């Protein structure tokens, strides 16, 4: 499942996409620990797969929660993507 968390408003589209199929197959799930803002959490989805998701309280503000990790501020890629061995995390902006 491609789970898109985030929003679209007058200022643009801000979505974090998690491929839960790839995510569930990854044992390490290093993304949760790698995120300095605590945006990601790992839990069981509606179909019983253990996969990462964006915490409820960050879904309407991912643009700001993730801003310190965006290219130009830190490395070339956000740490969640660096830590994701499965390549299951994408950011739309």
């Amino acid at each position: 499942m491609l789970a898109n968390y985030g929003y679209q408003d007058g200022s643009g589209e801000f979505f974090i996409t998690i491929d839960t199929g790839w995510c569930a197959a990854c044992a390490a799930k290093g993304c949760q620990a790698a995120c300095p803002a605590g945006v990601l959490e790992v839990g069981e989805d509606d179909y019983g797969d253990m996969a990462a998701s964006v915490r409820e309280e960050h879904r309407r503000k991912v643009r700001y929660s993730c801003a310190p990790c965006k290219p130009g501020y830190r490395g070339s890629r956000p740490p969640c993507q660096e830590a994701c061995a499965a390549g299951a995390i994408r950011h739309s902006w």
Partner: protein
Amino acid sequence: MAEAAEKEFWRWKEYNWHNPDLDWRSAEIVAAGVDVGSVSSQAVIMADGELYAFASMRTGPDSPASAENAFNWAIAGTGLTLPDVHCTVGTGYGRVNVPFAHKTVTEIACHARGANFIYGPAVKTVLDMGGQDCKAIRCDEKGRVTSFLMNDKCAAGTGRGMEVFADLLGVSIEDAGEMSLRVDSEPEPVSSTCVVFAKTEAIGLLRAGWSRERVLAAYSSAMAHRVVALLERIGVEPEFAVTGGIAKNAGVVRRIEKELGVKAARTSYDTQIAGALGAALFARALAQKGK
């Protein structure tokens, strides 16, 4: 000081229904789904996989009470009581506040499952236009979600936005859709993506002499354009279906169809109960597992 009586044009009808030809007592599994949304709450009762009863009403300030009210209204006159229900699943914005639910499931999964039941297994793309959010969902032939996207940060493209316009124009919310289609030519959509500023723009258009039909058409186009952008992010695979209250607004649905170039599936079911219906189907599956 005398107060002027004001009609609430936005106020949509609350309703309940049960199938008089079915008897829940002869059912092996009675399952319930309760969808506590930001604007409306629905409860659905299923008897052995068949839709038996439902109710749809406004969500009040107290979510647990809204869940209970919707459930109690759905079972009114059926002789059914809560202990007779084998399993209940809660969903929606207030799903954690359904006190009698055995499990909660996200509204995304429930809407896909509900749409699969309502429209059949051919439906691969579901657009739920809810009271205060909008969900674009791709699913397989079993109603299992393969991709989803939700927008609940902006009210443009939601039922609440249409309520605001119904009130502004003095048009009953049930008539707004048909009325928006009564225009000779399609006006430019209102430019704003925010309901509050779209309303400001509409007031300007009314002052400039636009008819109510034309203003509604301009807003319905803007709504359609906005949700089509969401749908395009996940891709649209036919069949395409719309659920939620706005699915009953022909003006918006026709414009979405036009912009997508895809016809929306039709149904005789109430599209507003899709989430609660999906929850009831999850509840039925849980009850079956437990047996």
